[in-house]
């Protein structure tokens, strides 16, 4: 069994009183709780903090923990021989996690008491993320999931068991959407239902499309003459390239909608694809092109900054 220094995790002295332990826990919970924290490592850190607090806040568990002695964090250790007699079965410590040890702690815990009393206990729920590509969201996908779930072994002890399975992500999932996998969490005890696995869908960034719900956005670079004269251009969509009519006089930033070309919605219909016009100029113009632009500049009456002058006049009138 690997040793964890619960006092160091909470940042308190071994002699800290219950109040100091609670205060330290709260401070760290504010910092790392996955529902509150922005820290990407918050969830893992909070798990350690919550595990440490669950043991140290309970006077009996804390006493039992203290009797395990002091070891370096991560050090493989065995509880002292008399520890087993006092708190549980000393032969059962091989390959189990310290948190599982305290969870089933000598029948003092709620869980262990209920297990002995044959009260049905539902299995633990788990949360996880399914990272999928935009193409997977468009077509639907199967993902391989790996999970360490708590299960009772043949001796009635809680153990972490690795479990892997395939899950179907139906088409129409988008960023932040939640899915429930019934019965894929921890095993229920004494006939209690198995726990569930909740998946949070996260989309990988795509080189071309940006998703907003089921709508997709695509930058559509246009040459100046295409935006002035209009053009029919080929644009990629997740279902294959389509032709898009760019109307004459298309401004930069204008959104051209391709209805139902976004992500399919889970139950019916689909989002839209928006092509955002961007007017792009060549980095290098040939002599011929420069001459043509020069000709255009001399012949055009267009003043893109006319409104600056209007504003200026208004300013002068008001002062």
């Amino acid at each position, binding site marked *: 069994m690997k040793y964890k220094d619960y006092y160091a995790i909470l940042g308190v002295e071994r002699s800290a009183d219950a109040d100091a332990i609670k205060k330290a826990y709260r401070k760290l919970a504010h910092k790392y*709780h996955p529902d509150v924290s922005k820290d990407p490592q918050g969830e893992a850190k909070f798990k350690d903090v919550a595990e440490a607090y669950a043991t140290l806040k309970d006077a009996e568990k804390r006493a039992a923990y203290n009797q395990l002695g002091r070891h370096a964090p991560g050090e493989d250790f065995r509880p002292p021989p008399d520890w087993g007699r006092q708190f549980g079965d000393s032969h059962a410590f091989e390959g189990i996690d310290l948190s599982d040890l305290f969870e089933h702690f000598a029948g003092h815990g709620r869980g262990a008491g209920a297990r002995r009393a044959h009260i049905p206990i539902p299995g633990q729920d788990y949360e996880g993320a399914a990272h999928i590509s935009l193409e997977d969201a468009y077509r639907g996908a199967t993902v391989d999931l790996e999970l360490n779930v708590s299960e009772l072994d043949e001796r009635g002890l809680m153990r972490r068991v690795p479990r892997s399975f395939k*899950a179907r992500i139906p088409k129409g999932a988008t960023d932040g*959407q939640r899915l429930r*996998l019934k019965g894929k969490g921890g095993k229920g005890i004494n006939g209690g239902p198995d726990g569930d696995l909740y998946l949070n869908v996260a989309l990988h960034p795509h080189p071309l499309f940006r998703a907003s719900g089921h709508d997709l956005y695509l*930058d559509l*670079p246009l040459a100046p003459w295409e935006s002035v004269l209009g053009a029919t251009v080929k644009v990629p969509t997740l279902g294959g390239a389509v032709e898009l009519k760019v109307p004459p006089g298309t401004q930069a930033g204008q959104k051209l909608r391709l209805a139902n070309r976004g992500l399919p919605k889970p139950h019916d219909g689909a989002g839209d694809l928006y092509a955002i016009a961007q007017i792009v100029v060549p980095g290098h113009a040939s002599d011929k092109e420069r001459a043509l632009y020069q000709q255009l500049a001399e012949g055009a009456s267009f003043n893109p900054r006319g409104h600056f002058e209007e504003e200026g006049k208004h300013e002068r009138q008001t002062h």
Partner: protein
Amino acid sequence: MNAKLTETSWLDAHCEVSLAELASLSGLAEAELRELVEYGAFAPNDPRATQWTFSGECVVTARAAQRLREDFDLDPNALSVAVGLLERIHALEAEVRALRAQLPRRVR
């Protein structure tokens, strides 16, 4: 490896759960859920109905509420404030994501 494919179900507005189901899925007691509804942390589909039903999205919110209650030791009043603020943050984050998606990237 178990080759059998696990089916998934959406937790969205199309999925409806009863008060009892919401309690069992979230780990909150029905009385606690009623209190959270009363404080406006989340709402049933039809508050006047005799048998309340909730959108599947409420499962996610109620589970977060259960974690917050458990981990921060919150009373129902404080919990409803926290859940209300979290919901607002999620709505604002969704809005930021939507606006970001519309911002053009620099064209190479």
